[in-house]
């Protein structure tokens, strides 16, 4: 029992430390085929991303960012020509980049930094704290191992 709790505690500490040492900066890309088309990106953690949109049409267009887990639009980028923009994706989930405009366009989404969101940290601290407390109480209660 004690070993089991110890394993969970150490694992929680590991999960707090790992994102700091294991940084990956993946880039995904997609293609907008016309007005109302969208590209979706699934991310497991909160992160800061750089969005690049290039298009050949000279008129203005819009790219809306939709958070499908929390069911709301989180950003609205409008431009003429190409876009470079930095944006924060608040938590894990699937994000849709919706194109409104004429012609076609291409998008690349690159990760600048990834980190656990506040909610994730709250849950990890809660579980880690509870397990540590129970672990500290075990010898006091006289439970072996």
């Amino acid at each position, binding site marked *: 029992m004690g*070993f*089991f709790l*110890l*394993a*969970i505690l*150490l*694992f*929680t500490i*590991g*999960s707090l430390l*790992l*994102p700091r040492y*294991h940084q*990956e900066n*993946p880039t*995904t*890309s*997609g*293609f907008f*085929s*016309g007005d*109302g*088309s*969208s*590209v*979706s*990106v*699934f*991310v*497991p*953690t*909160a992160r800061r991303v750089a969005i690049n949109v290039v298009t050949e049409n000279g008129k203005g267009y819009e790219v809306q960012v*939709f958070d*499908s*887990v*929390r*069911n709301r639009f989180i950003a609205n980028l409008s431009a003429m020509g190409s876009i470079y923009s930095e944006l924060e994706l608040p*938590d*894990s*989930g*699937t994000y*849709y980049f*919706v194109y409104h405009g004429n012609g076609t366009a291409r998008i690349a989404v690159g990760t600048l930094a*990834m980190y*656990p*969101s*506040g*909610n*994730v940290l709250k*849950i*990890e601290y809660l579980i880690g704290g509870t397990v540590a407390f129970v672990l500290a109480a075990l010898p006091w209660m006289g439970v072996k*191992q």
Partner: protein
Amino acid sequence: MGTVRTQLEWELNDPLKLAVFLFGFLLTGLAFLKDALSMGATGMLDPFSQESAVHYARIIPRLALPTLSQEAYSVLVFVAVMLSSISIRGEMDSLAALTVYSLPIRKWKLFLVKFASILVLTTLSFVLPYFLALGYVLSGSPSLLRGILGDGVWSNILAFFLIAVFYAVSVSLSIALLSPNSFASILGGLALLYVPVILGASSLPPFNISAAMSSYLTSVAYGMGYTGTTYGSVVGVGFFLPSALLAASVILSERRDAR
């Protein structure tokens, strides 16, 4: 029955085995955590509508779920081999077997108790970290987590992992039973279970299990109803071979001595 239960408790409370369990739990957890942090999937939806976006957002990420990675399999192999070597050969080498074998239990029952305790410890150290890592990484969006693992996806992942654990445990146990000392048992078990990784054999674990897992996840992500065919490629070496080895080991365990 009482003796068998006492024996099981004794097997499960060996600090040496629990240390191996702790080691396996941590390393498997870190491996799965790394896999979970590098999940990613890209898709396209044309024309965009909010309802279908919300619908697909819970299904398409299944494609990105971590499968049985090579790192996790390496830790699994180490844990299974160490546990069975300690339990079967280490006991004889340290002469503790002289006491254990004088107990009023048949030898094959004793062997099955050892098998059960090793299976429980290995399963706990392998399956739990997966769901814990996934839960930690995605805990910011509980509805997403429920959506991804819902519809029986979690039970199928569990089944694939149990197949991998059963394979590793029964192969390493029969090696431990056949080898003349602990060293040979550890070396032989590691070598036999790790050869498919080095050769890249796609019809043996871990690669056939991870391939079957990803084809299962693909079919479930795109809404294919029938997913039973994905088990076809793993049942042979994942269930039949380990069961045959286990049966042979049970028969063999009757004939072995305490030295």
